[in-house]
């Protein structure tokens, strides 16, 4: 069995990525990403820029979009809606986790 050592890199370290990089890592075609941008699911840093750059957060969103589109056979509108709802769930879970962390542990 081969053993390789490798340095793990933060996904968040890619501060901004291009459309082609986003397509490369997410597995979505550029026109599919374009649909998600049109639906507002992905937002470039500067929509008026000649060449779009995306915040690293879009990497996670695009990969989730790719899975949802493939596994649920959703079109871009369906994916955009699912992403928005998942984002809301994530925000609420984050809020609950924050509240739980700052509450005394009553099990003791």
């Amino acid at each position, binding site marked *: *069995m*081969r*053993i*390789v*050592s*490798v*340095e*793990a*890199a*933060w*996904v*968040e*370290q890619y501060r901004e990525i291009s459309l082609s990089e986003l397509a*490369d*890592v997410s*597995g979505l075609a550029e026109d599919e990403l374009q649909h998600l941008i049109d639906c507002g699911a992905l937002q470039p840093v500067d929509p008026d820029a000649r060449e779009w750059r995306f915040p690293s957060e879009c990497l*996670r969103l695009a*990969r*989730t979009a790719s*899975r*949802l589109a493939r*596994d*649920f056979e959703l079109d871009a509108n369906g994916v955009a809606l699912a992403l928005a709802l*998942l984002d809301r769930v994530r925000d609420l879970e984050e809020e609950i*986790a*924050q509240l*739980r*962390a*700052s*509450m*005394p*542990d009553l099990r*003791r």
Partner: protein
Amino acid sequence: MKYKDYYKILGVERTADAAAIKKVYRKLARKYHPDVSKEAGAEEKFKEVSEAYETLKDPEKRAAYDQLGRYQPGQEFRPPPDWGRDQGAGGGFGDGQFSFDDVDLADLLAGLTGRRRGGGRGASFPMPGEDFEIPVKITLAQAAGGTELELQLQLPERDPNGMVRRVPHTIKARIPKGATDGQRLRLPGKGGKGMNGGRDGDLFLNITLAPHPLFRPRGHDLYLDLPLAPWEAVLGATVQVPTLSGTVSLKIPAGSRGGQQLRLGGKGLPKPGGGEGDLYAMVQIALPAEVSSRERELFQQLAESSPFDPRGHFAQGAQK
């Protein structure tokens, strides 16, 4: 090779039509999809469901699968010998010599139909390797100091005959300090192998932190319950408080109340870009489980001499 009963996994009859299979798949996908479900073991269950659907939704793959016959799930079986040749083993292997060891049924079916359609090993266009995501649980100490994890993976690789086999890999991944719950790390090129010049896939690690007996992490901040005796809270005190980097003395201001947070700047988890989160000590007023007669006497004296009314606001509030 181990048999997988795709019909049983989806819970459909072997005679089910494509529409029925699709309906059941969608129901199970909503239940177990890792982006949607919080059920324990959902990801593994979804992989099974997804693999079953990939085969049964495709008439050619389904026919090939049905041709295998029926076995018990997990039962060892041998695919038809010509399947090895179809995968690209060529004439160099006799029927009895081709090994299906380490070959996954899903890979075999995908390769078989892909090759018949002109894909597979004979295809010349670049195909990127598959990306993989795996959950990784680390301790707070590992997150704070960075760590090296040994990951055991079974990655699909094509052997010289074009057959996709699950090859065990050990990857030692160095995790930089500063990880916290929900963060993701990328190991570039450590996913599935690309073909015909396609890039190798990536391996993504989804970090979760193992529960700690004292500290509750939130982002890079940590929360700690700080029990104080009533007299420590009233009079103030200096108490020893544990942090990830050792014990520190913390001055408790007189008149501290339960629920108040005392912030210990920079005593949280390190951040990847530099700096540290904070540690919040949450004041709790603790009472002894049992009191001695002397303590009871002192509490009695306090009760008789103190004008403090913790419910003074009740009367005012009730009138509004």
